[in-house]
């Protein structure tokens, strides 16, 4: 990370840094990652720090956490500008930009109560198709329901 925030936060040894989050979205991301703060993970959340690219941005550093593919998809839906840095032994060993997938599998719950994906006893993996990136619109492949923009965060399936 070459855009050093003015707030001093110690580096992490092993874990993940989520950078270039649009300002104000960090807490939404913690929420969709299922992080409430009681898990015992060492976490730094920087909000509204200066950024050359975005003006202001948020950053999340999580010690000892690797993201699943579903986690990354969920982050992309909320913070399409985010970059993920994998840290090992204080060094960035991998860095990539998130991309919004065309089909989002098993990341979002359908808001429609009579969608087959919400029927008890059926093992349906939810599947949403990206119909528009900006503004963000996703459509349930089973029932056709469209969810858009800021409401997407409400429907991310929370995982432990």
């Amino acid at each position, binding site marked *: 990370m070459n855009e050093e925030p003015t707030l001093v936060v110690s580096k992490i040894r092993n874990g993940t840094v989520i950078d270039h989050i649009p300002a104000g979205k960090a807490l939404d991301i913690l929420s969709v990652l299922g992080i409430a703060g009681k898990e015992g993970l060492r976490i730094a959340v920087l909000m509204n720090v200066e950024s050359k690219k975005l003006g202001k941005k948020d950053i999340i550093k999580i010690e000892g956490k690797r993201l699943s593919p579903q986690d990354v998809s969920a982050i992309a839906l909320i913070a399409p500008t985010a970059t993920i840095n994998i840290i090992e032994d204080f060094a960035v060993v991998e860095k990539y930009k998130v991309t919004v997938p065309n089909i989002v599998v098993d990341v979002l719950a359908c808001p*429609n109560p*009579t*969608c*087959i*994906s*919400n*029927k008890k*006893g*059926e*093992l*349906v993996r939810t599947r949403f198709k990206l*119909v528009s990136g900006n503004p963000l619109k996703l*459509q*349930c*492949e*089973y*029932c*056709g*329901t*469209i969810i858009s923009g800021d409401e997407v965060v409400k429907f991310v399936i929370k995982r432990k």
Partner: protein
Amino acid sequence: MKSSFYQHDVLSILDFSREDLELLFGYAERMEKSIDTKLSLLFGKMVALAFFEPSTRTRLSFEVAAKRLGADVISITGEESLSISKGESLADTIRMLDTYSDLIVIRHRYEGAAKYAAEIARHPVINAGDGKQHHPTQAMIDLYTVKKLFGTVDGLNYGILGDLRYGRASTSFIFSLTLFKPKKVYLISPESLRVREEVLHVLKERGVVYEERRSLGDVIEELDVLYVIRIQRERIPDPIEYEKVKGSYKVTLDLLKRAKKELKILHPLPKVDEIDERIDNTPHAAYFIQAKYGIPVRMALLALIFGVEP
């Protein structure tokens, strides 16, 4: 060459093209000619009817269509579907029917149930209605009716009146019009029963000229086809909401005085009170003819899916 119906699922009318439907209509015409004879085109085939939602009309229509073609029919209805819905998962029921039959026709109150069933079954699945979402075979019948009445589906003004939010027949009919070139489509409904966002999305994407209206009286003079559906009481989550919209639209003889002489009224039936019953005996009423086409169109569809020619 086998058509795009061959061994194919029928989940949404949008899975098909205009050419596909024209092929289907050609088959249906030929089926009409042999409507009173029992054919043996599907001899040895087993068709499973899985109606998890009460239905008489559509289920019987599929049953007659399959039997006229010489197929055997097994079905889950009424109490059986109730006991299944209590215990066994839909997935397990579909797996069972899939081993017993060559094709499954499903109706279910959950949107997406037919698609889910198609993902599980090896044999083709026909969606006979999934919640408020799709009813593709009804749309095939509706278009066939328009084609028979006007000689074409293109260039006409359509009014679609009623509970467009929860109506699957109206949704599929609207979708089906996007495969053709209607002149204009009026979507007429009470505010709370407006067509859903995803349906408007398809209309916009496919460049159909449409307009949303609150009152039939505003547009009645322009219409060639008026498609009416009842309020889908069983799908409105809140009974208070139902009370508010109950009886909020009705086609009356008075309104029809201002209509074109050629106006035809379609309705997927059953009707409740949205069409004055005195209209039944006028030349505008086309819904009984439409109902009659249910069997030849479904026969045509089954023949195409199994790859046999009438």
